[in-house]
């Protein structure tokens, strides 16, 4: 099973008003600083890029580092312009990608 993520937007939003986008991504976010029981370094393994697309453009971009906890949970605000899909896509440092989308209904 690929990387799981969950995305939440309000059921309906008002045009011109900001609404909360909540996204949570399943990822170990291994810092690269930890060692296993044999003393070997556990290599860095993190989601480093996350982007939110809505209304034909990038409305939110994040660069995550090793200080972010496992299974990153992000909340940000987007201004409602039009009804349509809102997509969040992320990529980890091994090139694995994940994507979730939700429909925004501008009432």
């Amino acid at each position: 099973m690929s990387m799981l993520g969950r995305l939440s937007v309000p059921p309906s939003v008002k045009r011109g008003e900001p609404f909360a986008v909540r996204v949570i991504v399943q990822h170990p976010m291994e810092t690269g600083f930890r060692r296993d029981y044999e003393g070997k370094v556990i290599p860095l393994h993190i989601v480093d890029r996350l982007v939110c697309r809505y209304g034909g453009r990038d409305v939110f971009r994040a660069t995550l580092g090793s200080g972010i906890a496992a299974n990153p949970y992000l909340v940000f605000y987007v201004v409602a312009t039009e009804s349509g899909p809102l997509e969040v896509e992320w990529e980890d440092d091994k090139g694995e990608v994940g994507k979730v989308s939700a429909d925004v209904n501008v009432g």
Partner: protein
Amino acid sequence: MLRAFLLLLLAASLPAGASDPPRPSPLRNGSEFQSGDVRSLQADDFANPMALWVERGRRLWSEVRNGRSCAACHGDAVRAMKGVAARYPRFDPSLGRVVDLDQRIDACEQAMTGTAFASESDDLLGLSAYIALQSRGMPLKVSIDGPARKTWEAGRDLYYTRIGQLNLACTSCHDASWGKTLLAETISQGHPTGWPAYRLEWQRPGSLERRLRACFNGVRAEMPAYGSPDLVALELYLAWRAQGLPMESPAVRR
């Protein structure tokens, strides 16, 4: 005379309620010993990171593996699995021993698909979290009658046995000292109602067995292997001890 003696012997060997070990009073569920932040994370069905594993379990439930799926036999989990997790651990006649929910799921997977889940794997924790969710809010109630009795007794004895370099028994903290502070933590009553839970210290979910192993490690005792009779017996005893408390799984713990 002999009959009277035999009756006496029988009475002594019966599971008398009066001789049951004491339970904490009042019973306090695990989340009551967590900080407000942790409690609100658990209560938020979106932000609770266990939701990711619940989602994984939901997909696995209907995923076809080796030509079979959980849903093909059991149907809709929301109906079929309602209250099931609140009755585990329990004696399983087909396996001939007491098993916890994870072991029951794994036994089913092995019988149906021929492959086993690894302990603490995302898939196993996902399925058990998804099944446990169907019992959320329902009171924990396990059976310790019949063949489960011996396992319960073994669990009780282990609960009261001092172990490890720190020479502590479970009861030393979770009966005698609950509510007091250990470093930055409030000592809980040690109820198993929230598992599998997302433990912030681990940065991932874990089973009750993993949590119990951490306690063995904490008192510097040898950790029992996953699935060992000691852990299962302790799990059954803890479930009996917590009976009546509402299930909280999938919970968040510090």
